[in-house]
């Protein structure tokens, strides 16, 4: 794999941090340099200030009023301008009274106008030769009605040399600092992200057969821990689904095999038996019964497979729950009558939902069928319709033995049976409740089981009155 810094999270992080740091340092360096330059000039200006005072002390006028400079000590005279100052003296009306010889006639700025008063701020200036100077002007009073403008200049080049030295130090130090930080940041990121590698490695080893494995989480509170926890939770759900699927496959093949075994053994045994036509008729009849059972089971499986694939068409209409409950009860009334059970619908007769009456009716029929099957003789099965604000509720109360707590979570699972032996006798393959749950779920409803302590079970279907688009 070609390594590219942008390709890895670590590289991207490092790049981002390094560029942020570089920008911040650059801003800082510019600020520092500007401040440094300003300080250097202040220093130079205060030196100039002192020089101006010295020069002022050396100025006087002769009797004729002409300017006299008593001493040229400190003034640059010849050769290179290393130390010493350059001097111009102007009369207030703009006549040049004195100019250092070193300047060879070059001016230290324009002719001072009438605006010059008191002390002037420092001012940088470049001579035609390229030499940079710092100048300071001041009005000097030499007695009444006689004032001159003293203008002093010193070499500014040493200041710039110092400034550039500092800038070049910053220019070398800054990239080094950024590189150093980037490098250590990269190493740090590698250390922080090391658990990610470990998690990826571990996750890549988890297959369908080892869904019980989990990622190791060092700190559940940090971001990686949260990611790992989320992944582990997903794994747990996946494991649960796989477990359900595995159980479903096992149960389905068991359910399919049972009638097949019956057909085969009944057929084989009776082939070896002498018998009359009636005997064989009976044998064939019993084989056909098993074949019917198989056909019905395959039908149910197909229905559910189609439901799982979302291929069931739902034709919604306004359904009055009381009416639908009564119709479902009417269909199964004879079964309750046979057991002298009372089967009745009670509650609110005005609650309607948007639903497919055939599919929802199937859920009710399955639940009522179960209720009748598991309620004792002379027991009662009652449907209750409740208007619960946003939801409509259908409750199916039976007077059966109830369902033990350890079975409650699983009774809606396909093929799940509370009592394996008894349920088969009573018919059905353990699909009724899961079909009922599916039928309720596609209407955005829920189905729950409640077992009150006084006995019996209550299956509660809760449907939104306002149909939800799925």
């Amino acid at each position: 794999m070609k390594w590219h810094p942008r390709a890895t999270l670590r590289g991207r992080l490092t790049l981002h941090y390094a560029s942020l740091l570089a920008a911040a340092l650059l801003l800082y360096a510019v600020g520092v340099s500007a401040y440094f330059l300003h300080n250097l000039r202040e220093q130079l200006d205060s030196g100039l200030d002192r020089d101006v005072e010295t020069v002022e002390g050396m100025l006087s006028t002769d009797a004729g009023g002409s300017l006299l400079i008593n001493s040229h000590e400190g003034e640059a005279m010849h050769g290179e301008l290393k130390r010493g100052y350059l001097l111009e003296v102007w009369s207030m009306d703009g006549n040049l009274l004195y100019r250092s010889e070193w300047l060879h006639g070059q001016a230290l700025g324009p002719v001072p106008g009438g605006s010059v008063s008191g002390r002037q701020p420092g001012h940088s200036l470049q001579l035609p030769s390229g030499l940079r100077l710092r100048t300071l002007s001041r009005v000097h009073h030499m007695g009444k009605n006689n004032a001159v403008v003293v203008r002093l200049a010193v070499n500014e080049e040493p200041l710039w040399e110092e400034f550039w030295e500092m800038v070049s130090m910053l220019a070398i130090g800054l990239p080094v600092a950024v590189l150093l930080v980037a490098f250590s940041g990269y190493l740090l990121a590698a250390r922080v992200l090391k658990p990610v590698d470990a998690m990826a490695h571990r996750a890549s080893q988890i297959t369908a057969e080892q869904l019980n494995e989990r990622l190791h989480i060092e700190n559940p509170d940090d971001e990686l821990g949260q990611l790992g926890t989320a992944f582990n939770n997903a794994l747990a759900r996946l494991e649960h689904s796989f477990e359900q699927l595995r159980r479903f496959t096992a149960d389905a093949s068991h359910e399919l095999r049972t009638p097949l075994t019956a057909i085969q053994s009944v057929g084989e045994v009776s082939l070896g038996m002498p018998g009359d036509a009636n005997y064989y008729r009976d044998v064939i009849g019993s084989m056909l019964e098993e074949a019917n059972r198989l056909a019905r089971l395959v039908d149910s499986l197909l229905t559910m497979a189609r439901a799982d694939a979302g291929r069931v068409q739902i034709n919604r209409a306004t359904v009055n729950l009381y009416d639908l409950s009564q119709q479902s009860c009417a269909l199964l009334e004879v079964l309750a009558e046979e057991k002298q059970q009372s089967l009745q619908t009670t509650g609110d007769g005005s609650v309607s939902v948007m639903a497919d009456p055939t599919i929802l009716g199937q859920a009710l029929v399955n639940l009522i069928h179960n209720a009748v099957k598991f309620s004792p003789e002379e027991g009662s099965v009652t449907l209750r319709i409740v208007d619960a604000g946003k939801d409509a509720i259908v409750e199916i109360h039976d007077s059966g033995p109830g369902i033990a707590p350890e079975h409650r979570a699983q009774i809606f699972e396909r093929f799940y049976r509370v009592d394996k032996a008894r349920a088969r006798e009573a018919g059905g393959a353990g699909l009724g409740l899961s079909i009922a749950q599916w039928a309720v779920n596609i209407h955005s409803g829920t189905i729950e089981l409640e077992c009150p302590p006084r006995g019996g079970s209550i299956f509660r279907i809760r449907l939104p009155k306002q149909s939800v688009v799925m």
Partner: protein
Amino acid sequence: VEILLVEDETKVGSALSAGLRAEGYDIVWAQTGEEGFFHASSRSFDLIILDVMLPGRDGIEVLGTLRKNGDKTPVLLLTAKDAIEDRVLGLDTGADDYLVKPFAFAELGARIRALLRRNQADPSTTLSIAELMIDPLRRTVVREGQRIELTAREYELLEYLARHHGRVVSRDMLARDVWREVARATPLDNVIDVHIARLRRKVDDPFATKLLHTVRGVGFTLSEDPS
């Protein structure tokens, strides 16, 4: 009456041929779509029973070609695909009826009779089996001069059995035609059995000759002759 049966499954094909011959039909059995198409286009039949899942040309294709050639022979499709789209496709292509596998032979017989427009008595004429008289207009039942009181469902059940008298009626047929229950997963078998038991108590128990018989593994029949 000649029926062309197109069915590749040997066991199913021979069982259906034998069963239909026993009912008095002449059967030509083709085992592939090509063979079926050849028979259908070379001579005329009263009815074609066509399996959808055939090797080579499937049933829908054969049916489509026949209909394109102007053949109007009634066609009953046998399909293992219990899906609405397959039924719609079959009926759109020109099938007159369809039956989903697995099906009860009794039901196939009923469908064939319906397609051949036979055994379609005037729905208002009185049905009589032995001494049992059923008046569809007044919905009354009389046996040996005695009026028998039935509930609405019991009456419909009896009338349905009487219209198919002498033949076996499966629980699926009753669920669909008497209870008008479309969902096959609805647990109606127990309900049907209870109703049959009650009907038997009212119609048969007081009398010497038993008319309502259970054919184990298949269904029920209303007939003077128990076999």
